[in-house]
């Protein structure tokens, strides 16, 4: 099946029961699959009037207790930023899939890119932490979508799946395991006396237990800066307290959240840092370079945000040079440079989008830039 379909199947396996959609190439197939499958299992698909509404609907659905998702691509992702921020500040679990295409604006609707990575990190206004994942195959997007729902529920946060047109539209073999082999996580629910519940008081991991609408807790949920009761608190102090916990619940649990894969890094002289579909380029480049006698390894970021800073710093202290491979003109590369902090040279192998990067280009860059 295609990556888009595998993503939808992963959502269903994770227990998703609500999908607010809006058609957009190359993400439409996620919505189509959900529209076929959700009513079969007692869930609901609705095609909203735009991506602003699609995002608002999944935040509302999650507040009513349903695991919820939407999918989109660049132009729609831009429209979703407003209510993504609402999900962040109200700590509402949900999953947003961005099947990336080349931008800016309408760009190349049918051709892949990885140009929305910084928008994933910073696209909504204000400071916040976010979790963003990047699958490299149809099989991986299936499991990653389950993982995304689990992280969303565990940390009460929106989780982004930053895939791309190539993974989304490419057909690959996908094995769907038995339901009993799939581990799903549910949000920690509010319990105990209703008059003593403080909806935004930190629980385990800094995450407040959640009361859904209709649970009887009579919560107030607002996009304004709020106190532990969830009430608007328009003070400098309240802002500081709220932001510290919002940022902290992700930052303090980085070890639990960050996922990456190392490929032949143990003895490597040069490291390719990459993610998503470009990791397929990276793996081929490592194999070809090794065949030519150049010791290259790859760090594949499975979660791009939060960023695997410690791992990058660790690798930078062991190698002679690094390259970032991504289908944009330097986004995650800026983070790699920041973490390497001049210890070794770091070069970008980027592309403005519309096609994959060739492994030969990566090897050529390593040879040319590092004098191998």
């Amino acid at each position, binding site marked *: 099946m295609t990556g888009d379909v595998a993503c939808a199947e992963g959502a269903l396996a994770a227990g998703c029961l609500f999908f607010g959609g809006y058609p957009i190439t190359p993400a439409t197939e996620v919505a189509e699959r959900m529209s076929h499958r959700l009513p079969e299992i007692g869930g609901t698909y609705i095609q909203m*009037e735009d991506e602003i509404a699609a995002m608002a609907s999944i935040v509302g659905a999650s507040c*009513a*207790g349903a695991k919820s998702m939407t999918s989109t691509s660049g132009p729609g992702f831009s429209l979703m930023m407003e*209510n993504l921020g609402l999900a962040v500040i109200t700590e509402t679990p949900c999953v947003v899939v961005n099947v990336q295409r080349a931008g800016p604006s309408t760009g190349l609707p049918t051709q892949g890119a990885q140009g929305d990575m910084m928008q994933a990190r910073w696209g909504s206004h204000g400071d916040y932490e976010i979790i963003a994942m990047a699958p490299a195959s149809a099989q991986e997007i299936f499991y990653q979508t389950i993982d995304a729902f689990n992280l969303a529920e565990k940390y009460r946060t929106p989780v982004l799946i930053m895939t791309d047109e190539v993974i989304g539209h490419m057909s690959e073999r996908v094995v769907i395991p038995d339901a009993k082999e799939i581990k799903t996580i549910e949000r920690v629910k509010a319990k105990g006396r209703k008059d003593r519940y403080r909806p935004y008081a930190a629980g385990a991991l800094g995450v407040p237990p959640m009361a859904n609408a209709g649970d009887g807790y009579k919560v107030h949920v*607002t996009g304004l800066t709020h106190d532990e009761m969830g009430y608007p608190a328009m003070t400098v102090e309240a802002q500081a307290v709220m932001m510290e916990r919002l940022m902290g619940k992700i930052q303090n649990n980085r070890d639990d959240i960050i996922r990456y894969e190392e490929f032949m890094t143990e003895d490597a002289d040069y490291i390719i840092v990459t993610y998503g579909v470009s990791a397929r380029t990276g793996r081929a480049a490592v194999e070809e370079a090794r065949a030519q006698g150049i010791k290259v390894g790859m760090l594949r970021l499975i979660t791009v945000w939060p960023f695997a800073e410690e791992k990058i710093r660790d690798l930078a202290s062991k190698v002679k040079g690094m390259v970032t491979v991504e289908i944009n003109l330097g986004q995650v590369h800026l983070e790699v440079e920041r973490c390497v902090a001049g210890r070794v040279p770091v070069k970008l192998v980027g592309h403005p989008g519309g096609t994959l990067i060739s492994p030969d280009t990566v090897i050529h860059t390593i040879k040319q830039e590092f004098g191998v």
Partner: protein
Amino acid sequence: MTTAQEAQREAVKHPLDDLLRTERIPHIWCPGCGIGTAFSSCLMGMKESGIDLDNTVMVSGIGCSGRGAGYVKLDSYHTTHGRAIPFATGMKLANTDLNVVVFSGDGDLFAIGGNHFIHAARRNVDLTVVCVNNFNYGMTGGQVAATTPHLAKTTTTPLGNPDSPFNLPLLAYACGASYVARWTTLHARDLTSAIIEALANPGFSFVEVLAPCPINYGRRNKEKPLDTLRLFQEKSIIKNNAHPTELDVDWERGVVLGTFVNNPRPCSTDMYDKVCRLEEKPPKKSAA
């Protein structure tokens, strides 16, 4: 506490206190503002309707009226500007047992949120939408809105509004709302009855409440607080079932109030269950 104190306390208790987050009072609304009356009628209607309040939520957008959700002791959601309706749509579809009331203002629901309104009405999503129309953007200090009367002065139309305002009941009717009513804050009892009818309608219900905004709108248009209420009294015409095209807000000619649409039809979730869930369909006849 002595019996006398208890009696005194009981005497000052507001009949809606059990529905209010009393610790959040005083509210932010200005002296002379109509939102409190609209809010009070809305809560009274919710209470009198007999709906299960434990399964009732209020969703608001942004603006003065958008603060309504912050004062009601129910599950209450204060969302983003214009997005109360799609947020509420997600809630209702995810849990059809919930009664979902959207309480917000004209700028929120009909300018930035206009697209969402027309589609929720078209689908007949089972929501009760209460729009407090105070003819301007009050929270930001009185700018022109999609409901500001032609030639009225606001901070961004200092010489008068060049545009025409929406006729909101006509818009709601044209989009397919199955219940449409309009009252003013002076007609609090009629408004409460309308809220009760709107909650009983299993579909998209829209109640417009005309409300004074003396500080930001009245002040710039030579309307003292009582002048606006006098206008509501003297220039309103109660005409149930009036045709929605007659409902322009024109104080020279008179403004029509009443219930204009009360025409239940299957709501969006009923239609989804009927059309989209395969097990609901009869088995296909065999070709043989």
